[in-house]
């Protein structure tokens, strides 16, 4: 059996979660790699949550929110964009594979885009292989 990555997808309640729902209702095909966490807004997602997901064994993280201008809270996604930009740069800087953490804008009407994003993210993480760098495993003191 081929290895399927585990991807934690933080989806905003108002756009991307509905977009994922539409992908399902429209019977679009995409890899069964994502585990969805519904959040009120993409700006609800803090860097610690993303890193915690990787630490706890996820192979990748996808955060998706409304397009700029569509935010239910008017500007939440615009704050989030700044934060994610800086986080991505920091992760790249320390040499954590930048492809493992992905950000997207998916609206409630873009079921097809959601399916394509998940497919693309899954492919990229498959190419990287399992997350071994940033996963916490049980270790015995003195042994590596």
């Amino acid at each position, binding site marked *: 059996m081929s290895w399927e990555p585990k991807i934690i997808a933080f989806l905003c309640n108002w756009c991307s979660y509905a977009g994922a729902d539409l992908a399902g209702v429209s019977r679009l095909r995409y890899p069964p790699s994502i585990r969805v966490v519904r959040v009120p807004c993409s700006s609800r997602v803090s860097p610690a949550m993303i890193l915690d997901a990787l630490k706890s064994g996820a192979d990748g993280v996808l955060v998706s929110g409304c397009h700029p201008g569509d935010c239910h809270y008017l500007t939440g996604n615009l704050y989030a964009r700044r934060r994610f*930009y800086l986080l991505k740069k920091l992760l790249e800087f320390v040499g954590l594979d930048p492809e493992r953490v992905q950000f997207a804008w998916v609206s409630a009407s873009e079921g097809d885009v959601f399916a394509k994003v998940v497919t693309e993210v899954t492919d990229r993480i498959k190419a990287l292989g399992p997350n071994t760098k940033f996963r916490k495993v049980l270790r015995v003191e003195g042994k590596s």
Partner: protein
Amino acid sequence: MSTLTEKIREAAQKVLAEGLAEVVLGYTQGSLPYRNRVTAVNTPEETSRLIWPSFGVLNPANVLHKLKGKKVALISPGCVSRAVVVLCQEGQVKRDEVYLLGVPCPGMLDPSKVRDLGKKILRVEDDFKEKVLVVTSEGEKIVAREELLRQNCLECRHPTPPVYDELLEGEARKPSPSPYQKVEEIEAREVSARWQWFQEAVVSRCIRCYACRNACPLCYCPTCFVDDSRPQWVGKTRDPVDTALYHLVRAYHLAGRCVDCGSCEAACPMDIPLRLLTKKLEKEALSAFSFESGLDPEAPLLLTTFREEDPEDFMITQELKALGKI
């Protein structure tokens, strides 16, 4: 011409006598020739203990929260003034409750660089311009100041405080022409080499004493995320992943706030290059958002504001759009 120390004593005396502040936060000589300590001075008589330090490596703004309710004057080179400005922006300190005695900063010396000059350091004489005389148990040495400066002072962009109530006379260092050279050296490496650097220089050395957090003037949360137990973001063991997570989130929490005072690195017992992580974020904030921290107490913070044209080409949807896939 009087020295900076004399000017500081005179100004501090005046501030206390005129009631502009109840306490003056400055530096006094520490127990070793290459140590200076942050000290609070309450009376005009005590001001004779104050000095302009060669080794003022810890940021006095860190003590402000312990002096809440009192009007405090700070001897402020660029980084101290900027830290206070960020604290004002974040509502931790009221601007009219602090009196900033600005000092054009000639840069501070790195205690570890001086310590390495001999077995026992007996005396350090600094002219605050070009040369430093170091008397060791083996003899005297005259060293160029530039060679002994702290790394963050070499990379400093604001030696003269941008905000002050009173600026003392003096000659500041010139702003660094290449503040991000060390960051760029790491950036130029391959992904795997960068990860190896992060593991070797940061993660494996760290003993998680949290001295970097405690020394930071801008880490003031009553409960730090590392002390949270539900959710427990950072485990209590020495697991390298927990340590890596701590350093990433610590640096990230200082994005757009860090004033590069170098207290974290000075406090670190393991010589971890902590500043590189914060400096990287400083560089990104400047290049992508033209933002510099601690310049204006009225300005919004980096992450509490946005622009419509902020970069978004790092997002996968924008990438796929550019490729024509969606």
